[in-house]
């Protein structure tokens, strides 16, 4: 375990040094990302120019939800998405062979080799925006509420990392599906709305197959004093099930890997 932490630290430092080589690029990307934050908050404001509430959530509550959803999205991008995106390339170009040859767990290498820093400024800004929105809504979460919030947030990260990892694992067979990231992006964006918007079969699908509530809704409900016990159950259940399923599927897929003759 310590060996992997040390290795991760070196990967992290290596990525940071690489990003600092292209400071101007990071600066421009940061501006673009902050602009996107404005677009997202602007969209919510425009929607509430026409409606009073969405699935019972007021404008202030949806804004908090949207910021938490975007934070979740950015943290996924920072730590996982860049790695998962590269996986299709490794398979197509036979570079996965080199990962298999290294004396490190291949899943670790596939999932954690790269850290993307382009969202870092937006993450910092969003923390301040979130604090301001909470204050504006008259919410002062206790330490227990913060603990619950982070528990849901972390559970969401684990669950969505596992789900996305299972999806990219199919590259062992499908090879040319290089744009899975589009689906990931849409799903994470969907998490910025309350899960209560889904009705009927969609409600079950987005509760138990792709638990969108774990992106932001369940965490924000803690602040609003609306957290249901069943949400904790769903979170714990999904963490265990997706962790097991993704590891078993990964092991099964590894046995079917055919190198692209690097």
């Amino acid at each position, binding site marked *: 375990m310590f060996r992997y932490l040390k290795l991760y630290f070196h990967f992290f430092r290596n990525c940071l040094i690489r990003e600092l080589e292209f400071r101007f690029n990071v600066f421009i990307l940061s501006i673009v990302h902050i602009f996107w934050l404005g677009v997202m908050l602007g969209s919510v404001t425009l929607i509430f120019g*026409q409606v009073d509430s969405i699935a019972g959530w007021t404008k202030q509550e949806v804004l908090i939800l949207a910021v938490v959803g975007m934070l979740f999205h950015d943290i996924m991008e920072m730590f996982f998405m860049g790695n998962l995106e590269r996986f299709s390339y490794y398979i197509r170009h036979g570079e996965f062979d080199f990962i298999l040859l290294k004396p490190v767990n291949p899943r670790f290498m596939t999932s954690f080799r790269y850290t993307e820093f382009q969202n870092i400024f937006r993450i910092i800004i969003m923390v301040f925006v979130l604090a301001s929105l909470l204050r504006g809504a008259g919410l002062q979460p206790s330490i227990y509420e913060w603990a619950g919030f982070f528990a849901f947030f972390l559970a969401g990260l684990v669950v969505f990392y596992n789900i996305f990892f299972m999806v990219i694992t199919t590259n062992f067979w499908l090879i040319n599906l290089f744009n899975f990231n589009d689906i990931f992006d849409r799903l994470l964006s969907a998490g910025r709305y309350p899960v209560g918007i889904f009705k009927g079969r969609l409600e079950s699908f987005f509760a138990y197959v792709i638990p969108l509530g774990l992106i932001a809704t369940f965490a924000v409900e803690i602040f609003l004093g609306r957290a249901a016990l069943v949400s904790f159950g769903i979170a714990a259940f999904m963490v265990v099930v997706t962790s097991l399923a993704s590891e078993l599927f990964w092991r099964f897929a590894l046995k079917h890997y055919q190198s692209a003759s690097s």
Partner: protein
Amino acid sequence: MSNKLMRKYLAFFKNQFSATIYYRGSILVWIFSNLVFLTVIVSVWLSASSTQSLGGYSVSELIGYYLVGFFLHWVVNWLPFYSTADEIKSGEIVASTLTKPFSFYWRKFSEEAGWHAFAIILGLTMTLILAVVFQHQQLIAFEFSWNMLFWALIAVVLAIFSVFGFSLCLGLLAFWFTEVWTVDTLFWAGRNFLGGWYLPISFFPGVFQTIIKILPFRYLFSFPLEIFFNKLSLKEIILGIIISLFWILFFILLYRVMWERGRKAYTSFGQ
């Protein structure tokens, strides 16, 4: 255009069409990802509580707007940005175009046509299935008229040329800056927010609407939809077509300037 030249562009069309069929999986991924967006936005509007009309649309009209928009997304998004920027960055453009006797503009246009010929069929099939499902659940409503369809089709053709020209010019920036992905992100922010993809532009306050009607983004997506849903008078349609034509011409001229100057400024490696 001579027959000989036409045959060359036809070859680009066929090549791209074959490649698209071969890599059809990625199109299915795009369809699915747009389907997720459609599902979410429809659910948002169905769960919204409002005492007024939504930017001049009823809820069922709004759902129709996103459904037709789902299809329109496949029809109008002729985006040579990615391949253009890649070719310039990698130096591939030297062998693929700069030393060959044909127009880069029409080569890219033929390739995009090849991609869209297949993508539109898939997109249309998916949209029709969704339309039947939505109709069955009485979720959509719009008044159909041949007159509006005629004007909407003209606006669609203009949108194709606008998107194509805009995207191509952005791709050509790679002649000077090599890495231009950031610009693409800005394009999408403009197109999605100001072009009516997230919300119809009637949701914006009055002053913003005036600005949006002058900028090119509206003519990349929203304009045909506004016509199709009977939200514009004939005078507004004609004015929109004139502005749209202006932007098409602007992007063609900009392309010519950028192409001429970019080729002279360009230094490639490894070719």
